């Protein structure tokens, strides 16, 4: 693995189904993030994690949950998908360090369609 990966690349899902989007990074970054991107709305933060074992809510957390059992993985779960969750989902990571510049590195994205 080089950088940050996401799976699946795309998915069509029936409403009401449960779905987990996977994100893995091998850069030993402590912080990880999930965004959704919708046309005209830019990227909106869903959840984030500053370090393994901790998570926080972003701008649009409802309907989503995350976990951070280790440094590398940050899965995003939709417990019961709804059509409004149709979007492109990006995972990102950064090395959060007050002395550093902690730019975010983004995964390739997952295109999710909920019917």
């Amino acid at each position, binding site marked *: 693995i080089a950088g940050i990966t996401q799976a699946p690349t795309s998915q069509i899902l029936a409403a009401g189904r449960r779905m987990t989007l996977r994100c893995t990074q091998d850069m030993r970054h402590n912080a990880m993030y999930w965004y959704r991107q919708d046309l005209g709305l*830019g990227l909106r933060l869903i959840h984030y994690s500053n370090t393994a074992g901790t998570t*926080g809510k972003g701008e649009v957390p409802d309907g989503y949950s995350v976990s951070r059992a280790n440094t590398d993985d940050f899965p995003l779960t939709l417990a019961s998908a709804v059509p409004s969750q149709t979007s492109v989902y990006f995972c990102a990571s950064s090395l959060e360090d007050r002395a550093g510049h902690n730019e975010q590195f983004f995964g390739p994205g997952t295109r999710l369609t909920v019917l």
Partner: protein
Amino acid sequence: ELKVEQNPLFLSMQEGKNYTIYCNYSTTSDRLYWYRQDPGKSLESLFVLLSNGAVKQEGRLMASLDTKARLSTLHITAAVHDLSATYFCAVALDTSGTYKYIFGTGTRLKVLA
């Protein structure tokens, strides 16, 4: 609540021309980022601006930050077709030691040959 506004939202320009994209934000922050996104692709980091007056340049792009005015600019010099993409600014919000990143809605740039 931190709001980040970019303008213009759409920009069509001729090759060889100069133009500036603006990013305004509503709450104090000393960290601002610029990203580029090509259609159907992920985001690529362009610039990281960490202090008032910071200026960074890469090729035909130059970014600056004025934290007092809560304004960042991305200036394009002598545009070329390869610069066609969507550009996002993002502002870091410090919430009790945790940084959240709020993105602008993006500026879609099309450079015409």
